[in-house]
């Protein structure tokens, strides 16, 4: 395994047209070693989601160096990487509504080329094994986020990008979900980048990158795909 | 002064083949059709009447009519009104000396329409007939005088100044049959209206050629509801032709021909338009020359009506000390044909007494 999972140098990204560009990310640099964890802090609109989008190849940076698993970002097959190595967890709606929790995990695992036989195991590990046949609208928000974590770990990821994964949960549930996330991250040894505005959650990561001072109070829109 | 408007509508409608005749079509069509008047001869001030030719058809003009109204009385002394009109409407102009097309080609250079109506005891009988010209089915000849459509016919009789008018509708003995068969004795010479026969129809100079026979003695038989009624009385005969239509914006007209008991005759009409009506008329004294009446020499106003149709009028000719009221009898006198209009006898009271006829158009919806 590479020593450095991720290396970012002088990353820039702005939105808008030629006449009126709004810088979102300006001259950003950081690194993440394997099994390391990094919290992205900052208010809404500070560029957390944009950075995550860039890190999984859904958006391209304007300038700067980005090396992921030792590969320059311009040479990366992002599609394959997202399928097999990068797991993404959103604040909500991580599950296909028409599929049961287990089928969701199976779908994600099969896309990543992982065996479906381990899917029930991941649900058990996340304490929702008994709910495997339920549909997303039949379980609580916390259980949905656990299922989302099961999906991510079922693909055996090298890097997890989590965008406010506990953002819409109450304190207790949020702590439970966060516990599971950090525990399994430690066990599997994958990298974790977690965007949050919750300082307590951020403090559980090895490093914190505060984007607040980098971006003005510009609203770049909602966390979009 | 006759159904200009009717003819216009008919024209527009025959030529363009629009689906339903109605006032919208008529007035929408006015402007279009004026452009199409090229090729037709147009009456103008200075034109004169020529007899007997002008009793016949004028194929170079677009529209013309032969029109007779009669205020009659039955043997029982009941009033009876009677109307007969024949129209010619050209679709293309033809010079007077040109050869008419072959009948076997079923030509459609002109359409003819005849109307006949009888008003008696509050009831009104009306019928219309249509024909294409140049077949022989309908036509008009000046000498010897004859105007006909199918079996309806007005024609000179065996004696000079003696005419016959026959009309029948339906089959004798069957329900709905009615008819008239009249002898007309024409007294006096034709009266030219306006300027030697040129009668203006708007302030801007549109007009028609127009003359009348105002003193006709009538005797004959009218058959209504299986009863033969012997009648006698007075009639009024109009001849009018033109090519130019009403100005756009003229909504219709009100026309009167009156036999006053004093022996004088009076013709008056007004064309209704936005911002003031155009009035005109002719005062025909018992003796002496007829006098044309201009817009400011006569007043004509409705005073009451039945529905949208004004059936009571006040007519004033200050220069002749005429201030009379004209009243239609009770009843509905709408000629309900392709183009409905009102045609009823009127009684005259006020400074003068007498009887006459009234024609009102453009009040139908």
């Amino acid at each position, binding site marked *: 395994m590479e020593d450095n999972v991720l290396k970012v140098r002088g990353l820039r990204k702005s939105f808008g047209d030629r006449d009126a560009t709004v810088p979102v990310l300006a001259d950003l640099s950081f690194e993440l070693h394997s099994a390391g964890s990094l919290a992205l802090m900052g208010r809404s609109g500070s560029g957390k989601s944009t950075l995550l989008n860039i890190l999984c190849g859904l958006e391209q940076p304007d300038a700067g160096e980005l090396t992921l698993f030792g590969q320059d970002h311009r040479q990366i097959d992002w*599609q394959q990487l997202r399928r097999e190595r990068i797991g993404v967890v959103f604040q909500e709606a991580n599950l296909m509504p028409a599929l049961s929790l287990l089928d969701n995990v199976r779908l994600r695992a099969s896309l990543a080329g992982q065996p479906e036989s381990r899917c029930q195991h991941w649900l058990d590990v996340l304490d929702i094994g008994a709910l495997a046949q339920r549909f997303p609208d039949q379980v609580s928000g916390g259980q949905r986020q656990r299922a989302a974590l099961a999906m991510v770990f079922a693909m055996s990821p090298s890097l997890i990008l989590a965008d406010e994964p506990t953002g819409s949960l109450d304190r207790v549930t949020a702590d439970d979900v966060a516990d599971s996330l950090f525990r399994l991250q430690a066990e599997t040894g994958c990298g974790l980048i977690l965007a949050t505005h919750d300082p307590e959650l951020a403090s559980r990561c090895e490093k914190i990158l505060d984007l607040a001072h980098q971006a003005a109070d510009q609203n770049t829109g909602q966390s979009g795909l | 002064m006759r159904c200009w408007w009717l003819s216009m509508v008919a024209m527009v409608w025959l030529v363009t083949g629009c689906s339903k005749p109605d006032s919208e079509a008529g007035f929408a069509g006015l402007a279009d059709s004026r452009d199409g008047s090229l090729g037709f001869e147009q009456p103008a001030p200075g034109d004169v009447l020529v007899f007997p030719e002008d009793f016949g058809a004028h194929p170079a003009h677009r529209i013309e009519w032969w029109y007779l109204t009669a205020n009659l009385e039955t043997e029982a002394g009941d009033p009876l009104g009677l109307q007969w009109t024949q129209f010619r409407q050209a679709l293309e102009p033809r010079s007077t000396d040109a050869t008419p097309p072959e009948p076997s080609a079923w030509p459609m250079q002109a359409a003819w329409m005849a109307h006949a109506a009888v008003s008696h005891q509050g009831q009104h009988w009306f019928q219309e007939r249509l024909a294409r010209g140049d077949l022989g089915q309908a036509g008009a000849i000046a000498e010897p005088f004859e105007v006909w459509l199918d079996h309806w016919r007005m024609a000179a009789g065996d004696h000079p100044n003696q005419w016959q008018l026959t009309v029948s509708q339906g089959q004798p003995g069957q329900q709905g049959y009615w008819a008239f068969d009249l002898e007309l004795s024409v007294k006096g010479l034709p009266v030219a209206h306006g300027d030697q026969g040129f009668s203006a129809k708007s302030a801007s100079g549109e007009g028609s050629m127009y003359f009348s026979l105002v003193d006709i003695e009538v005797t004959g038989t009218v058959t209504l509801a299986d009863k033969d009624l012997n009648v006698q009385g007075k009639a009024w005969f109009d001849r009018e032709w033109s090519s130019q239509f009403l100005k756009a914006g003229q909504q219709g007209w009100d026309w009167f021909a009156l036999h006053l008991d004093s022996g004088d005759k009076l013709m008056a009409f007004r064309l209704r338009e936005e911002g003031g009506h155009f009035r005109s008329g002719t005062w025909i004294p018992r003796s002496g020359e007829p006098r044309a009446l201009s817009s400011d020499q006569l007043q004509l106003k409705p005073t009451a009506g039945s529905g949208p149709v004004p059936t009571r009028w006040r007519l004033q000719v200050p220069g002749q000390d005429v201030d009379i009221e004209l009243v239609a009898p009770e009843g509905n006198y709408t000629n309900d044909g392709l183009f409905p209009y009102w045609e009823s006898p009127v009684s005259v009271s006020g400074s003068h007494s007498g009887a006459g006829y009234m024609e009102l158009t453009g009040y139908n919806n």
Partner: protein
Amino acid sequence: MTAFSALLSHYRRHPWQGIALALLMLMATALWTGIYHLTSQARASLSQSERVVEARYQVQRVDGAALSVEDFVTLRRQGLCLMPWLEVLPEGESRRVIGVDPLAALCFQGQADVVSFDGQPLRGDPFMDIADAAALPARQAQLFLIVDPDTGELSADYRITDFSLAPDTGQLGDSFLLNLDALSVLVLLITGLLLRSVYLLSLSQRRDSFALLHRFGVSPRRVRGHLVAELVGLAALTLMPGILLGQLLANALAGGFASVMEGLFDSRQFVTSGNSWLMPALVMVTLLLLVCAVDWLIPEKLRKAFAVANRSGGLSLLLLVAGGAGVWLAANLLFLFGSVALMLAGAGLLMPWCLSVLSSRLAQASKQPFRRWWWAEFGVLCRRLALPLVALQLSLAMVLAVQALVTTFEATFDHWLGQRLSADYYLEVPTDADGQVAVDWLEQNLPESSGAIWHRVLRGQGQLDVSGHEQSVDIFAVAPVGALVSDWRLIESAGQPWQRLAAGQGVMVNEQLAYRHELAAGDSVQLTLAGQSLRLPVLGVYPDYGRPAGEILLAADQLPDDFSVSFESFSISPGEVDIEVITEALSALWQEPALTLRDNRSIRDLANRVFEQTFMLTRAMTMLTLVLAAVALLLMGWVFLSTRLWYFRLLAVWGTARTGIFLSLLTLALTVSVSAAALALPVGIGLTWVLVQRINPLAFGWSLPLDLYPGFWLELLGLALLIGLCIGLLMRRQLGRPAVRPSVTGTITGGER
């Protein structure tokens, strides 16, 4: 900010949803208005067509000479109501035109129109102004003078004979109109479904706002009140444009581009159409209110009970079975229509249920997770788009039924004309002339080698003994029985019916007689002709398309010599022989200069052309329904799939290629629309069957043949594919844009399963 403006603000944020809603409402209005207009036009067109072909009289010259314009003028000036009818076969054309004079036609009763002939436009199909017809270079031209015989006495030079363009259509037209009415009710149902789906869409898209308002203390009743006010407002905005659009559409479909332009720029359109907007407006407002009020009119418990009852498809099956039984057993029309409604309701409920069950079964059976997701998603689509899908299904079914019906009517009309006008020419035997003389001449001079076929027709009355009761029937005797009758389509027959009929071994009965006395092929009838009693087997039943009188067809050789013939004629297809040779010879033999001869081929051609407009209008009506149902599905599908966009984009986050996602979407849309078409097929066939085999016999006592047209099914399938393709392509554009994450409540917008 009031609750109302808070509700409306939804559309400020999502203007496209508001526009889609308004568009659907507008289309539904346009649809029904269009149908309403087309139906009334079809009705008018049919009655005009029937008026044109109804029986008339003509004048002929006693000396047999051709009529001319002089004859016309002479008779008109005698006071007769007369109109010219100039049949012209133009050079280089195979179809005749008829020149008429609308001015002369005015004296016939019930006509007050000088620009058409009995409502038929003067455009040469087949009628035109007589001057134009006379001006055509003609291969053949013949002038007829149609007369109203009650308008006067004819002079001795003329006589009056029958004249008609075609036999009386009788109940054929009434039947067509009844079916048309049944169909417009169906269209109203489809419109209702479309409106309901619009209403539900507007509800579901804003459940968040409702929840919020509820939290702010606004009662659900008030929210609902606001919603209805909003819908009524929307209706007020879309109603008039919808009605106008419907009129324009109807005109476009009925009269082509020219009349649309006329409609657009001619104020007369709106004057003459009078209150034609009133009816559609009233119907639409009522329908809209009903559609919104369904939720209050039917108590929630009952609705829940329905939903439970239908969880296993039981309710829809029950409705189908009950409706089917009702249709089968119905003894009167009202009961039948009720049963059809039940059946349609059952079919409408069954379809989404079927698809939903199918999808979950197939999802269960799929080993591959991605395929399982696809089927699950398909199930969601079917459930969410149930209403527009049912509307499309019913529209497709209706189009199928109408296509079959109209084609059947055309074919029937053709058969019916063919049956009555089987030969090329029809020659009346003049009163007092001897038909046998003509038979002898024809046998001698028209040998089989000439290709000529003919038969002699004798008509009269006979007595039929039905279970002890004597009943009068029409007798229709033919000799020789040959090719002119043997290609008739028989409803039922014994073996070799025509040979046996020719041999005098039996009779045939018409449909009406068979229906009334339950006669079938093989039964025997007791017949009395001129006092002579005969017992003969029934060899076949021939269709008579609504002729109310009972009729018996037999070989003329079987008639007793003293049978009183009320009418006699010859039907002749002369083959290579010139018909004039025949008429001249017979004219000389009969010493009758003017024979009544009708050219049946031109009658057939003309009658078909006169009715063409009616059939065209009916097809237009159904196509309009179909197109709008398709557009509705397109819009609803697009709107719904847009709310699911997040999940399709999720697949991209999970590393699926965009083309793969697009293909999934496309196959989803295609499968949904094609499923609707496939499930429409049985409904359409059932509907056709009900229309021709059940409604018609119940209403009129005779049936139309049930013909199906599989080629047309393929066309409809193609159309369904096209709709699916359009939805897919619309979504492809969407895929490239950022997706908004489903809202906090999660299960409402786009999160359905």
